[in-house]
């Protein structure tokens, strides 16, 4: 049953299982993977909070004593809890890939870096994975917002009825098949090769479908159908059906790519894939929505009409992108998560 993905509602509760060949699959898989990544990130953040709480008091105590020439005996764990509570502890990955914690001192500056022993961190994560996890924890808000925007887009795209297939859509299915194969293989190098192939297939499918959609839109914008004697409406309808179909599969392929990257822990690549999709929505869908509303026989032109809604669609990944590409990877940890874990 490894291929079946659960669809989660807005609270993360499963609604029903989805087959990979269901149109719901990409969006369900992406939500599932995002949720799992955030859960993992939270666990990692909790583990790090505990680890820091265990180790840091001694080091900071020594530090403080050295600086002031006198060794004060203070209840550091209380101070530490306060520090964490106020967000005055930060975690950082060094160039060597080691994880360090820094406490903010009374003068508002951060003290020297305190190493965190690997053993105190639960699980078998390497520093890079921890950094990624922490990054995810810090990006929860952006990711949640993106997930919600995607659900809105998903609803809009799949309002349209299914039609016939073409080879560009075939590329989507072969990408999907390779992904499923990758999931079912134990051979790590074969798995990686299949994933690369799957991602390539999906990217190619997206690219081809975007070209098709753009040329279909251009046909309508340039009113090329006017030269068809007595068949103008037929030509418009054909192009609109092609446009709706292409949009549907561009959507599916984009989300599936993002879901695979997310599954691989490659958040930057995931954001890039979503960024490309966002660009497409803005430049191809939203910009032409007014014209397409007039051409689409299934669009009634109501306030909540299909293309009127699509004109409003947007997928804002800029904030996530910005945070992910920030050079310095510093994470501020709050106490709330550790409290949840304890309670």
């Amino acid at each position, binding site marked *: 049953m490894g291929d079946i993905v659960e669809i989660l509602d807005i609270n993360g509760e499963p609604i029903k299982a989805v087959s990979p060949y269901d149109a719901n699959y990409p969006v369900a898989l992406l939500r599932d993977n995002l949720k799992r990544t955030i859960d993992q990130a939270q666990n990692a953040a909790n583990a790090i909070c505990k680890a820091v709480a265990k180790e840091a008091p001694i080091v900071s105590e020594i530090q403080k004593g050295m600086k002031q020439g006198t060794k004060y005996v203070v209840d550091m764990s209380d101070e530490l809890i306060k520090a964490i509570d106020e967000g005055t502890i930060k975690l950082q990955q060094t160039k060597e890939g080691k994880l360090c914690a820094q406490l903010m001192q009374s003068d508002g500056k951060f003290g020297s870096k305190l190493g965190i022993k690997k053993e105190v961190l639960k699980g078998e994560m390497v520093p890079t994975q921890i950094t990624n996890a922490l990054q995810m924890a810090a990006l929860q808000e952006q990711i949640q917002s993106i997930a919600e925007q995607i659900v809105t887009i998903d609803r809009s795209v799949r309002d349209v009825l299914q039609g016939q297939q073409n080879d560009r859509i075939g590329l989507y299915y072969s990408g999907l098949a390779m992904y499923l194969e990758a999931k079912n293989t134990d051979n790590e190098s074969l798995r990686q090769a299949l994933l690369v192939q799957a991602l390539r297939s999906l990217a190619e499918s997206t690219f081809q479908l975007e070209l098709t959609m753009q040329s279909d839109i251009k046909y309508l914008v340039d009113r090329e159908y*006017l030269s068809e*004697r007595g068949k*103008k409406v037929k030509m418009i309808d054909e192009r609109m059906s092609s446009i709706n179909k292409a949009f549907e599969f561009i959507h599916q392929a984009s989300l599936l790519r993002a879901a695979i990257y997310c599954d691989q822990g490659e958040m930057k690549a995931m954001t890039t894939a979503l960024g490309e999709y966002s660009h497409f929505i803005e430049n191809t869908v939203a910009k032409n929505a007014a014209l397409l*509303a007039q051409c*689409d026989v299934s669009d*009634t032109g109501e306030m909540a009409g299909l293309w009127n809604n699509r004109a409003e669609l947007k997928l804002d990944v800029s904030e996530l992108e910005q945070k992910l590409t920030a050079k310095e990877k510093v994470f501020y940890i709050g106490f709330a998560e550790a409290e949840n874990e304890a309670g």
Partner: protein
Amino acid sequence: MKQAKGCINKSCEANKKKLKYKSDDNFCLKCGSSLVPVCKKCHTQLLENEENVLCVRCSADKQDQKDKVVDGAKKAGGAVVAAVSLVVGVAGAFVRKK
């Protein structure tokens, strides 16, 4: 011709009945929503200051109908031409027989 206006509030009676307002009307009398220019035939929303009173698809349909009328007339004309040539052909055969 001036564009018709319509209410695009989905839950409004005026929208369900595809009621058309005049181009200088601004608000729906049934629900008070702002009116927008709509296609005279199918009620699809049009862009403001657009020349057309029909949406892209409806005006294409209108031209298709026109094409069919013109083509129908041409077909009728074509049939006459064929009949004439048949006569000529018969005449030609006639001549050869001579």
